[in-house]
């Protein structure tokens, strides 16, 4: 593993992460020195745009474009914020934990150069409360970086000052939504906010705010050091998407795990070459390409490139890029019921379709799972998929929730039909 081929993970060590000195000896904070001494903030944003870095939190929005919407210059508000979404809770996703536990300085450095690009006054790493070890390691890294002059007043003697804090959350899935995250950080209930205004204009405390995922940010120092052309070249012509991606596999496979691979490798390569294929005696039934809120794909989709456009064309979403593999010993009804129980519990309750529709889907799925479904139940589920779909709810929670449900009905309709109870013929006395 080298910096050129595995930029995100070549310095990663969960057992003993690099401290400041070790990290500096391995090119650490070189991007901060380069940015502050050689580059204007706009140059950093331009480099990220040119590299075609897309968000790794699930939506795939171009990072440079997001930053480009932040007001800059003398007339811009003095207070601006960079928030790192480290509220990793998408079921089936386990990449940001590793990046933070194994290379905390990499994220701190990434926050500094990204904060410099938008001229942020403060940064917050919004970390889920359960990530106790990551909190401890990030706080130590921040303290070391501050002592070395990479954080605080006049970073490296420049006119720019930047403070960085870890904000440890208190649970719930919904703060992963960027406007809910802002409300949560402000010390409120994590209900999403209406957009527009977009956070880049009016976010945290009404000030310009950028929210980026951990993995997204961790790419930025490497882009500054090695350039956009190198970054685009990492996917080796296999994908329009640039860089590497942390891909993973969970479920009953031989070697579940996480690997940094070029963007656009096939799902088959990830599942078979890296995860060792299905567990003994098991067959692949279907798979989620990137978390609970993505549509199921089937074994015939395994040869698709794991990138944003290809997976979208197949009717799903790349999401977080970590595969959840369902084996053939499982009823699809049980799996989807489990997924919808999660979404129903985690609905913030702010809007009616989500709050009431999701528990309804759980009731119907539970009945079907136990062979107690009634005629019309499948049609009701399909109707719920429409009523909870994009544009019908306040945020993306419910539209995400219906993705596995609608695709399960599409691919496994026979299992749903088998869950409908046979009418009992009344004996005539």
């Amino acid at each position, binding site marked *: 593993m080298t910096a050129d081929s595995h930029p995100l993970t070549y310095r990663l060590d969960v057992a003993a992460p690099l401290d400041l000195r070790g990290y500096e000896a391995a090119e650490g904070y070189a991007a901060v020195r380069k940015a502050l001494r050689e580059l204007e903030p706009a140059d950093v944003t331009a480099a990220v745009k040119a590299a075609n870095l897309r968000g790794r939190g699930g939506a795939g929005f171009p990072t440079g474009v997001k930053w480009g919407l932040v007001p800059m210059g003398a007339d811009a508000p003095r*207070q601006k914020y960079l928030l790192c979404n480290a509220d*990793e*809770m*998408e*079921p*089936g*996703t*386990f990449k*940001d*934990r590793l990046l933070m536990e194994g290379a905390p300085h990499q994220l701190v450095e990434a926050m500094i150069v990204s904060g410099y690009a938008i001229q942020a006054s*403060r940064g917050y790493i919004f970390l*889920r*409360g*359960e*990530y*106790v070890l990551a909190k401890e390691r990030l706080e130590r890294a921040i303290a070391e970086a501050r002592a070395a002059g990479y954080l605080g007043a006049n970073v490296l003697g420049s006119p720019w000052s930047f403070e960085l*804090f870890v*904000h*440890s*959350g*208190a*649970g*719930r*899935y919904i703060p992963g939504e960027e406007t809910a995250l802002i409300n*949560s*950080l*402000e*010390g*409120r*209930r*994590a209900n999403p906010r209406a957009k527009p205004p977009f956070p880049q204009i009016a976010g945290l*405390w009404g000030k310009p705010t950028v929210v980026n995922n951990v993995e997204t940010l961790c790419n930025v120092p490497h882009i500054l050091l090695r350039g956009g052309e190198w970054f685009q070249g990492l996917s080796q012509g296999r994908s329009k998407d640039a860089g590497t991606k942390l891909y*993973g*596999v*969970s*479920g*009953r496979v031989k070697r*579940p*795990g*996480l690997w940094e691979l070029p963007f656009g490798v096939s799902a088959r390569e990830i599942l078979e070459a890296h995860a060792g294929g299905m567990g003994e005696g098991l067959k692949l039934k279907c798979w*989620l390409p990137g978390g*609970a809120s993505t549509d199921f794909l089937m074994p015939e989709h395994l040869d698709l490139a794991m990138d944003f456009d290809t997976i979208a064309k197949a009717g799903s979403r790349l999401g977080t890029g*970590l595969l*959840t*593999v*369902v*084996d053939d010993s*499982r009823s699809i009804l049980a*799996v989807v019921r*489990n*997924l919808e*129980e*999660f979404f129903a519990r*985690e609905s*913030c309750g702010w809007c009616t379709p989500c709050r009431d529709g999701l528990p309804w889907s759980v009731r119907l799925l539970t009945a079907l799972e136990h062979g107690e479904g009634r005629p019309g139940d499948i049609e009701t589920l399909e109707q719920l998929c429409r009523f909870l779909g994009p544009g019908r709810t306040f945020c993306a929670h419910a539209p995400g929730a219906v993705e596995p449900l609608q695709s399960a009905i599409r691919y496994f309709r026979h299992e749903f039909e088998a869950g409908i109870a046979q009418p009992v013929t009344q004996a005539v006395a």
Partner: protein
Amino acid sequence: MIMSTATCLAPYLLHVDDLAAIEEEMRHYDDPRAASIGALKIVQKRHGWVPDAALPAIGRQLGISAADVEGVATFYNLIFRRPVGRHVIKVCDSVACFLTGYEELNAALCAQLGVGFGQSTADGRFTLLPICCLGACDRGPVLMINDDTHFNVAPQDVAGLLERYP
């Protein structure tokens, strides 16, 4: 639990250490209210949960109403508004753990403890709660006991694991 009126109305004074910790938390933000989750966690660390009487005390410190503090406290699942056992068990019930043996693990836990989700053992030792995906899906089933995360937990491991939390 039964709470007498007297307990409800007794003035709650934030412990001096908690007060200092909350003030430190407030310094991290451009608005004191942002420290509300941190403040609730600080108080919870002292009592194991957040007693009713602490809500106005936290609110006064942050300049918001007790109702606002309660609104926050009841939204987040890691803030406990009822007493919990000495050790809180949080079992991941999300899809990856579901696929790798959550149901069997949970059955073993419930049998061993004699309680279901949301309940505490009669001796006040354990509280059993479900939790969202803990971000370790390659090592499922996963559970947390207090701040410790345990990976690849099989049903037969349950008794031994609980022994470590007297």
